[in-house]
């Protein structure tokens, strides 16, 4: 696939350069490590640092979410590859304000090891307390009984938002971790893939689908899903996604949620709103209240086609955090 790039081996570096230059009032790259980006705004002494990260290729996740109300720092990996411990550790040092740092990341073997090693080093070498919250929202990636095996996908947006807002509110590390873990427990995502992306280095499609096929539960990196089949109308796709979520996390009449309909890269906003339309209808019929909705590209897989639906069940605390203002280069909320 055609890409507007220079050198396939330098896409991440050049993206970060462009990003830092475009938003100098929002973010800065650490001198210590070119893969560590932190907020350019002074954060309060005693504020819990929020650190996110993972492979790149998911923009706006993760680097787009550094800013007030979201993360204080991000470690940026190669495309679809966890960052190594170094940039995580350097960002940790840079954002620690004496109250410790929370790491929010997805449940992938690489992230578990790299963030885990960084956390150990932060505690050993820099005496910084680290709390780890591992996002596991992807319903398709493991059965209910093995939720701890599930991958983290678009739901990471909500978990980051909750961590960011809780830390902004002055919560202690322990409390931020509790709130973020609750957000993760209350969050479920189901996705569908329509067309592949390709890594700049290989140029090969990440998976193969026939011209009239879709795949339910496809991973955020093109990992195979749970079911390949004929492309269905948007309404049926939405039905299926919401059904699978509700079967996994029942939501009762009168309960409250926030909804995220997320585009994987090349899917138009028009399609996302058409999907949203049906999601609203289903939830409405079930008497579930939609408190707030997010429709757009929040976590992509390069130029993959498809979308995911995320529901987060809201109690009063989560409602407050989902509603909190945020100001990041790729995401602003008033």
């Amino acid at each position: 696939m055609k890409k507007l790039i220079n050198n396939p081996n330098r896409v991440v570096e050049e993206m970060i350069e462009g990003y830092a230059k475009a938003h100098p009032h929002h973010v800065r790259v650490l001198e210590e490590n070119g893969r560590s980006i932190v907020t350019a705004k002074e954060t309060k002494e005693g504020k819990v640092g929020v650190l996110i990260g993972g492979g790149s290729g998911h923009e706006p996740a993760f680097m787009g979410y550094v800013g007030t109300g979201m993360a204080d720092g991000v470690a940026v990996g190669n495309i679809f590859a966890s960052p190594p411990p170094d940039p995580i550790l350097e960002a940790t040092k840079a954002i620690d304000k004496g109250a410790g740092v929370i790491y929010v990341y997805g449940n992938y073997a690489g992230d578990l090891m790299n963030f885990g090693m960084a956390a150990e080093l932060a505690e050993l070498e820099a005496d910084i307390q680290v709390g780890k919250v591992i996002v596991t929202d992807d319903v398709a990636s493991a059965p209910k009984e093995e939720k701890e095996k599930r991958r983290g996908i678009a739901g990471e947006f909500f978990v980051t938002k909750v961590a960011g807002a809780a830390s902004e509110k002055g919560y202690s590390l322990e409390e931020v971790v509790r709130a973020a873990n609750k957000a993760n427990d209350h969050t479920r995502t189901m996705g569908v893939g329509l067309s592949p992306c390709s890594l700049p280095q290989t140029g090969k499609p990440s998976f193969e689908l026939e011209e009239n096929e879709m795949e339910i539960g496809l991973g955020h990196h093109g990992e195979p899903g749970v079911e390949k089949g004929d492309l269905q109308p948007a309404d049926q796709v939405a039905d299926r996604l919401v059904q699978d979520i509700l079967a996994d996390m029942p939501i009762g009449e009168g309960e409250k949620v926030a909804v995220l309909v997320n585009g994987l890269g090349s899917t138009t906003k028009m399609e996302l709103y058409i999907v949203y339309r049906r999601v609203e209808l289903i939830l409405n019929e079930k008497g579930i209240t939609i408190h707030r909705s997010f429709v757009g590209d929040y976590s992509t897989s390069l130029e993959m086609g498809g979308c995911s639906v995320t529901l987060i069940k809201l109690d009063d605390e989560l409602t407050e955090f989902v509603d909190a203002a945020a100001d990041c280069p790729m995401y602003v909320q008033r």
Partner: protein
Amino acid sequence: MSFSAKELKAFLQSVVETIEENKDYLSELDRKLGDGDHGVTMSIGWQAVQEKLDNEWKDENDCGKISISAGRTFLSAVGSTVGPLYATGFLRGGKEVQGKSELTGEDLNNFWTAFIEGIKERGQAEVGDKTMIDTLQPALDTLKQEYARSGIFAEAFSKAVASGKEGMESTKDLLSKKGRSSRLGERSLGNQDPGATSSYLILKAFESVMTSVQTA
């Protein structure tokens, strides 16, 4: 037998080359099971090692230092899943031979034992999970057994590589349980695991250096 820092560097150099040659193949294997980047990741990591080979390590004779530095270099360059795994291998292996510029069969045996045990500890995968452990564990088993029996490291290592090869090939018939392809279920059948393959290539590279040492 004489295995010095020169041979260790020759081994690393040989890995760089075999990874470069097999880059597309490894990515292609990963494309079927995971996210298609294994060859890319390995290449980035080993190119970073190449850079050290060409510069920093030119006059370094401490095998421990070289191996530890290789682990760190690889990890810093790639992160990913295999970064911490292979890095741990080289770090643990390096620890075993710290301060040594010449390695005995015993040293090499300790190096590889620590290398593989380190990866196992880091990744917590087991044989049958369809990972590099399916190559490394049988290789280690054979190495231990054969080295204990014969005391001839080179011979034992060659047999270990053969076991590793069988292990690698066995991943074709396994269901994925770890890493990105773990949800693939039935569809993971028939495809060889990329990490098991790169592990085999690494073992194989070491074997070829051992052979040239012996024949030299």
